[in-house]
């Protein structure tokens, strides 16, 4: 299985197939469906310094080939994670990567510091792109300046692999990617959800309690793929691509466009075993195309 191995910063993933934060709980939710230890990595739920109740119901609206969510980072806070959740999941034979979210720069820094001590958390993903919280969140990810600031601050205190997750709600995502690369990020992951909205024509009301929410699923794939391609051509650090991946062909497209690893998010809800099928599908693809390893696909789009 060495042919599937990829590296992100100091991490070696057994394969490029990982699951996206906020769509995969802490992994345990999927333990009945798949062998978690086969995953390249698990990006666990968005974690904040303080506990958060999240937004009001309704938090979800179905859209053509996708969905909007406005969960708003419901989680019990980093202390609870460290004390109560981490012990239960640290035995997984895959990388546990924590998605760190916040409202202020200080939140990010403190939360990251707290996670730095955890042996079995070899990396964090800095979520500067959550569209569902009132303060901070996406705002950090929509200007080079603020993206650079938060990356620099966290880089100062966090010395393991630092992945920064980018927002697609920007004019030039490559610019932002370069800004966080310059501040020492080991990798960028993209995309987070697109800011969207749904209305119930009959009641004249928004379908989400928060009016707007984050769009994910196959509908966003073409835009996400384009952004991965742009970012891959702009930075030297490895790119982790995502946005609407629902099968192995999608995953390979993201890798051809320059993703060293990929994340599967929303489609886990439709098929909780999709990640296993994607791993198998990539192996099958390598076989059919007589390729030795995934490095022969990453960024190998023929333009």
């Amino acid at each position, binding site marked *: 299985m060495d042919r599937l191995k990829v590296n992100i910063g100091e991490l070696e993933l057994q394969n490029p197939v990982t699951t996206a934060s906020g769509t995969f709980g802490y992994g345990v939710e999927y333990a009945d469906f798949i062998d978690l230890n086969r995953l390249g990595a698990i990006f666990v739920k968005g974690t904040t310094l303080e506990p958060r109740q999240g937004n009001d119901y309704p938090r979800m609206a179905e859209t053509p080939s996708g969905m909007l969510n406005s969960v708003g980072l419901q989680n019990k806070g980093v202390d609870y994670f460290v004390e109560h959740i981490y012990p239960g999941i640290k035995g997984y034979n895959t990388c546990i990567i924590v998605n760190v979210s916040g409202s202020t720069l200080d939140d990010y820094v403190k939360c990251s510091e707290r996670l730095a001590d955890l042996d079995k958390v070899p990396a964090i993903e800095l979520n500067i792109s959550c569209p569902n919280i009132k303060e901070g969140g996406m705002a950090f990810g929509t200007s080079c300046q603020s993206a650079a600031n938060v990356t620099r601050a966290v880089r100062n205190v966090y010395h393991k692999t630092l992945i920064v997750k980018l927002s697609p709600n920007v004019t030039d995502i490559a610019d932002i990617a370069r800004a966080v690369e310059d501040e020492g990020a080991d990798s960028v992951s993209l995309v987070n959800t697109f800011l969207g909205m749904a209305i119930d024509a009959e009641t004249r009301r928004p379908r989400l309690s928060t009016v707007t929410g984050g769009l994910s699923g196959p509908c966003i794939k073409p835009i996400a793929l384009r952004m991965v391609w742009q970012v891959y051509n702009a930075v030297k650090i490895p790119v982790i691509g995502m946005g609407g991946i629902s099968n192995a062909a999608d995953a390979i497209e993201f890798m051809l466009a320059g993703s060293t690893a990929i994340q599967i998010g929303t489609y886990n809800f439709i098929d*909780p075993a999709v990640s296993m099928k994607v791993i198998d599908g990539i192996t099958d693809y390598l076989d059919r195309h007589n390729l030795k390893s995934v490095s022969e696909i990453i960024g190998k789009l023929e333009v």
Partner: protein
Amino acid sequence: MKVLDFIVRSNEPLNYQNNLIKVTPADNDTLPDMFPGQFVQVLVSNSGNVFLRRPISINFVDKEKNEMWLLIQRVGEGTRKICETPAGQLLNLIFPLGNSFTIPKKEGKYLLVGGGVGTAPMLFLGKKLNEKGYSPEFLLGGRSQRDILQLSDFEALGTVYCTTEDGSLGEKGFVTDHSVLRNNVYDFIYTCGPKPMMVAVARYARTNKTGCEASLENLMACGFGACLCCIEKTTRGNLCACTDGPVFNINELTWID
């Protein structure tokens, strides 16, 4: 929990908007133990407009035939397309999902109140109570006679009271108007149906200091606790209707008042 293909054994319209679909595992696997109140997530693979699975209660489990029943009301594209699946075709389900109604330890006076397609889980629950040797009573409500579903199945399990809004069957009015509620004191009430009905039933239960569980139909994306979209605000904080529910004790719910 499993993801599994089921074969549709039969698919019968019960009236103008409800179908009863009986399914069995395509690989002939024996159905696992399942409990009343639990539900399945149905993949809708024959529609260009439906992306997410649709949650549907387990209406009944026929152990002998290794069949599960789904009672479905066509309210939109998803339920319509599920109802268009002919016998012999496959339905992919994630199952069994959610918690279940509390089965009491000893005999008592139990009332199962269902409105519209909310009667779906009540048949399975009635069966379980019946198997325990209890004598459940059913109170079923609908707009009109044709909206009262599976009446003879319910009658086989216990006494059935009905209300219809137009008076075409049983007493005229809403379930909570039925005289049986005035003339009896119950040990426990179970309810599932439209929100306004459940609110009324819950208030009745609370007024009468009767224990009561309600099964909620919150919007769901995953159905198994991964997305946190289906939350219900409770006295214990935001809980997932798909894993902590769909059955909640009304004392935990905040929408009764």
